[in-house]
């Protein structure tokens, strides 16, 4: 994957290992932990947006599916965290695959709108809870000739899964064997270990034929097809992968905060993910990482400004986008005289 990336990975790993000894305050660690969770989503998005050139403003939806699968299975049905994680992955893959087939035929702003809509629909289901859905299913079931009481008996446990806008809590934490991940430090190592693996795999992927294929699609889809490339499966594959990364992030979030409610998975969040990727630099997965860190830490540092933070936040975002079109990482690379084409 190129020497630069290997060294970067090693440095990244070392930083992860030593950071908790530098940032001793649990507060900083918590901020970092959220950054880690969100960066998982953003790594996936940068594969999709930066490499395959397909935008998605619906990642919060996949994030939500992951979180709710874990939350519901663990809190309501007493399953282990790992079951929740896997189910989340399966559900997300299915959803991403099924909606991807028609959606990824769209382009540009239309694709943006479609993904946005999908994310919002998922958000609405979480918000409206499954009560209405079950009512609908019951209605169908009864019209299909099943006994109403039988139907309602079957559906009873599924009437209130998401807890609606109030969300639900008491989600147990993850335990790996005998190790129960509980303190901010433990979470830090756990989350960032996952992020490290995600980075490693993404970098591998990018520097393989698949990664090249995706960049080819980004570069010129017509030409890519003329060179014997069947583009839709590739786009689908990367879409599913980005959804899966979001799903893992969601599961981690659910177990970390132990409480989930729909506000965390709104459109604003989806848009924020895109912003994070762009701020860090679309042309590289490292950008996703850097962008997430910046956009997660910035608001915390701006707390001192009380209400004014919103203005300064907007201002800084504005300046970054006005003067760093390739994001922070892009800027750094231009320092080292590495052109856009060689990055990644």
């Amino acid at each position: 994957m190129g020497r630069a990336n290997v060294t970067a990975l090693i440095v990244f790993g070392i930083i992860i290992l030593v950071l908790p000894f530098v940032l001793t305050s649990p507060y900083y660690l918590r901020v970092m932990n959220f950054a880690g969770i969100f960066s998982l989503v953003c790594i996936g998005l940068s594969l999709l947006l930066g490499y395959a050139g397909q935008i998605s403003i619906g990642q919060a939806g996949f994030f939500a599916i992951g979180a709710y699968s874990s939350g519901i299975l663990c809190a309501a049905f007493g399953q282990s965290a790992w079951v929740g994680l896997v189910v989340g992955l399966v559900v997300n893959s299915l959803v991403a695959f099924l909606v991807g087939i028609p959606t990824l035929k769209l382009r540009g702003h239309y694709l943006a709108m479609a993904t946005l809509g999908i994310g919002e629909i998922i958000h609405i289901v979480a918000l409206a809870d499954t009560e209405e859905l079950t009512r609908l299913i019951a209605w169908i079931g009864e019209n299909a000739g099943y006994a109403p009481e039988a139907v309602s008996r079957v559906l009873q446990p599924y009437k209130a899964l998401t807890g609606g806008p109030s969300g639900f809590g008491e989600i147990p934490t993850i335990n790996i064997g005998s190790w129960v991940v509980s303190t901010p430090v433990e979470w830090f190592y756990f989350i960032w270990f996952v992020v490290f693996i995600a980075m490693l795999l993404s970098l591998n992927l990018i520097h393989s034929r698949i990664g090249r294929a995706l960049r080819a699609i980004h570069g010129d889809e017509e030409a890519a097809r003329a060179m014997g490339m069947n583009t839709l499966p590739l786009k689908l594959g990367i879409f599913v992968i980005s959804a899966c990364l979001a799903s893992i992030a969601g599961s981690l979030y659910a177990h970390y905060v132990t409480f989930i409610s729909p506000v965390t998975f709104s459109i604003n969040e989806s848009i924020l993910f895109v912003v994070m990727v762009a701020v860090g630099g679309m042309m590289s997965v490292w950008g996703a990482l850097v962008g997430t860190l910046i956009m997660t830490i910035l608001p915390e540092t701006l707390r001192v400004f009380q209400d004014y933070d919103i203005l300064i936040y907007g201002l800084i975002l504005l300046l970054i986008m006005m003067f760093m079109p390739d994001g922070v990482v892009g800027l750094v690379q231009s320092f080292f005289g590495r052109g856009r084409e060689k990055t990644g």
Partner: protein
Amino acid sequence: MKGRMILTILTALVFAAAMMMGAMAADKKPLKIGAIFSVTGKASWLGDPEKKTALMLVEEINKAGGVNGYPVEVLIEDDEGVEPKAVNATEKLISKENVLAIFGPSLSGPSMAIKPICEKAKIPLVSCAAAEAIVTPIEESHYVFKTPQLDSHVAVRILEQINKMGIKKIGLITDTLAFGQQGRKQLQKYAKEMGVEIVADETFGPADTDMTAQLKKIGSSGAGAVVGWTIVPAQSIIPKNMKQLGMKIPLFLSHGFGNPKYIQAAGEAAEGIIFPAGRLLVVDALPADNFQKKVLSSYKADYEKRYGPPVSTFGGHAYDAFSLIVNAMKAKKITPDMEVAKARELIRDGIEETKDWIGTAGRFNMSAKDHTGLDKDGSLELLFVEKGGKIIPLSQKK
């Protein structure tokens, strides 16, 4: 790439500012209390009066010589109504600022999100949010209290009145926020018990601008009254829409209507609305012997003197929360030199021992079993909007 230059300079400025702020914060050893409100974001109309109230109270207390001879410092964080932000703010207050107690958040979601953190950190939290789940089950809410009236009380008061008016069927219209849906559940629960039938059950989004569709549906469902349970500004559209549809049936709203701005916004359509709420809105109409008269009129006067009218009941929640903490500090003779963990424990006990204290929401009687401490009649007054948009206690309606 000279843009970099600008960026650097500006960020430099920003951080300089940050440091100065930090410097200003550092004062002579104060008693630190943390506060988390939705000052900006979706629920800012809720967090804003709370923040203003907190600032006002601190100033007053410190002018009066502080608590146990020490100044009080309140560190207010903004959660923008979002859980991760609330979690970060909480951790900051607990481990970085070492505050002795926290009040807020304004919303139920963030409150639920930070509850486990506070329980683990053994720090008293007095939430300003309504959801009962915040203080139940009591075993898991050892350190958590809340000041707003209980949803169940509000629901029961409304339904009692509905029974009194001999209405058998009602239609619900609630917002899709936690507040509305919590209320909806309570109404469904107690309506069954109190023999009132819910014939229509509609919701609307916090940003919706026209509810005629939902209300028309309620109208055609043969409901004898509309019960709205919501906290968003959009609720002042409900009476307007009902007027537009020519619906004559009475409209009941929840304590979420407790902001005079909403009543103004609804204009003359608001006339006849019945809603249970704290007595803050009707303090002037209260008889002199009312047990809350003194507290409320002084709070109202101070607030409106400082920020201009009108005062809303939401700020009152912060008033109660802050006072509960301060009273506990006084009672337990807390000083900044005390070991933090011990001080936090003592404050918690102090709050739990609160007996017969009168706040804006009513008379508080905390106990190991009950971390809200409000009784339904003591805390709520059925209010009535009469001609000209004036709010009076229903009991005084001619």
